[in-house]
């Protein structure tokens, strides 16, 4: 760390202003209380405090290189004792010699000067102590600040890592079954195969885009969902019915990317994959000035028992919302005998 006093002009001015005030106090004491002549008082105050000011800057390296750790405490004390002795001796000595030269023909002042050396040394020691302590406080503050920054950096990167993990992951079943459908369509309906390749590519591109935490307009997310649904419709044909309604103006609202898609995927999984007749999925968006609500609803067979446990996709979305918006109740699940619906409330900033 650099010497805080000489680091910039502002601090330097402040430092010398402090000493000017001290010099002023000394002047008042000398002139009014000790009845010394005004000129001698002024010269003494200026000379003594200027030397003190200059020499006290040199306390910094001593503080900077001796820590307050318990293990090094004896060393530190020794350093400061030696440092203080040398620095104060220098100040007192050169003040003494300088004042002898500057203030002549004043026998009472001469006596005073001789007698003053001891308290000048004591005063120097007090200032040394004050400034050294001040420096230690500064160092402590700086370390604290740096540690805080490091800590919040660490927290942020932990949060990023967590978000990355929760980010909707491409379902391998979906990818390979889609590729299989394309393989089939190349023979039975090449034109449709080409359409599906494009839909799949667009959906994949959207899914693997970096910077998943930057908010995007709802319209972009809905577009990706449409691609996803087109692909699922090829796979499941008439079994899948989807209805999307979006209140005007909501399309420009912002959402985290791939936050609605997992809900649609989940709705299709339990509403369509697990049923043998037609399953329907409804996506509805409504918005107000500072919030956007998205409701994904699917029909399901209450008597059915899914082969595997559900809800991991939903849990991920809920955790992601919590990390992004800091609120716990942004995802709500509603379940009746034949309808399963998930409502997202996304705050708009």
């Amino acid at each position, binding site marked *: 760390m650099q010497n805080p006093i000489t680091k910039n002009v502002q601090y330097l001015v402040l430092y010398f202003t402090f000493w000017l005030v001290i010099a002023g106090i000394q002047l008042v004491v000398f002139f009014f209380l000790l009845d010394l002549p005004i000129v001698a008082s002024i010269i003494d105050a200026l000379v003594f405090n200027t030397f003190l000011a200059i020499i006290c800057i040199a306390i910094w390296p001593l503080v900077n290189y001796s820590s307050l750790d318990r293990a090094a405490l004896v060393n530190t004390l020794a350093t400061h004792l030696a440092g203080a002795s040398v620095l104060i001796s220098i100040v007192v000595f050169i003040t003494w010699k300088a004042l002898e030269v500057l203030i002549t023909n004043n026998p009472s002042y001469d006596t005073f000067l001789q007698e003053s050396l001891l308290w000048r040394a004591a005063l120097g020691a007090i200032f040394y102590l004050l400034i050294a302590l001040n420096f230690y406080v500064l160092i402590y503050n700086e370390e604290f600040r740096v540690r805080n920054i490091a800590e919040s950096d660490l927290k942020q990167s932990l949060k990023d890592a967590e978000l990355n993990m929760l980010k909707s992951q491409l379902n*391998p079943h979906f*990818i390979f079954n889609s*590729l*299989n*459908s394309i*393989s089939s369509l190349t023979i*039975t309906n090449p034109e449709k195969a080409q359409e599906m390749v494009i839909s799949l590519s667009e959906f994949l591109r959207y899914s693997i885009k970096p910077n998943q935490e930057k908010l995007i307009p709802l319209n972009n997310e809905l577009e990706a969902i449409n691609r996803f649904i087109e692909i699922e419709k090829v*796979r499941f044909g008439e079994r899948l019915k989807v209805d999307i309604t979006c209140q005007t103006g909501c399309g420009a609202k912002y959402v985290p990317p791939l936050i609605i898609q997992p809900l649609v995927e989940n709705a299709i999984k339990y509403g369509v994959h697990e049923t043998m007749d037609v399953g329907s999925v409804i996506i509805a968006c409504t918005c107000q000035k500072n919030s956007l609500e998205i409701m994904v609803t699917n029909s399901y067979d209450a008597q*059915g028992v899914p082969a*595997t446990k559900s809800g991991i996709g939903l849990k991920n979305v809920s955790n992601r919302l919590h990390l992004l918006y800091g609120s716990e109740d942004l995802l709500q699940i509603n379940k009746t005998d034949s309808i399963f619906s998930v409502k997202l409330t996304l705050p708009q900033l």
Partner: protein
Amino acid sequence: MKILIIDDEKPARDLVINFLEATDGIEELHEATNGFEGLKLINTVKPDLVLLDIQMPKLTGFEMLELIENPPAIIFCTAYDEFAIKAFEKNAIDYLLKPFSKARLLEALDKVTRNKDVKPKQIDSINLGQPLERIVVKNNKSIEIIPIDEIDYLMSQDDYVEIHRNGKKYLKLQRLKYYESALNENLFVRVHRQYIVNVKQITKLDKLGKESYIAQLKNGDSITISAAGYLRLKQVLDM
């Protein structure tokens, strides 16, 4: 050769039919869109080979197989399933990962022809790496899907396991040992050589002998608990 394709996705069935239509040695091609339809066709058509998808509504390919006593040759077709792949390697004649080529399909068919004298064995149930949520059984002519939390207890009966649920019992060709590892171990405990019990169904434990107990169940039945079973039960119930 008579072939049955069971897959709930039409494009997937179309592709296989397209691959096989012009192939020599295939007399009949049938298709089913789910496991129930598949079961019916296996009984009526009696195919030599079934091309079977795993992920299907209501009844997975594995569950469907559990309901057949003398299965035809099976080739699994699936998109992605890390546990299933392990299982195929042990059980099936071959497995195809979607999407597959015509050549790969014909190669699998070739394997079936070469092995046609080998009697297809009953395929072991496959532990899919997470606890079972349901057990599929045949009850007279119908198929019943039992959610595991409705099960009171399971009891071994020779080659079968008797599944008790609300006073009704269902027989399933399976070993009790399989359910010991396939069911949620915090809910189902092997308390005796012959029994696995749903711990939520136990109302009372009575001391029987020096180290054995009798558990009274909600449905009125009582089952014996061995010394080792009692220790396991104590652990799960945190007594």
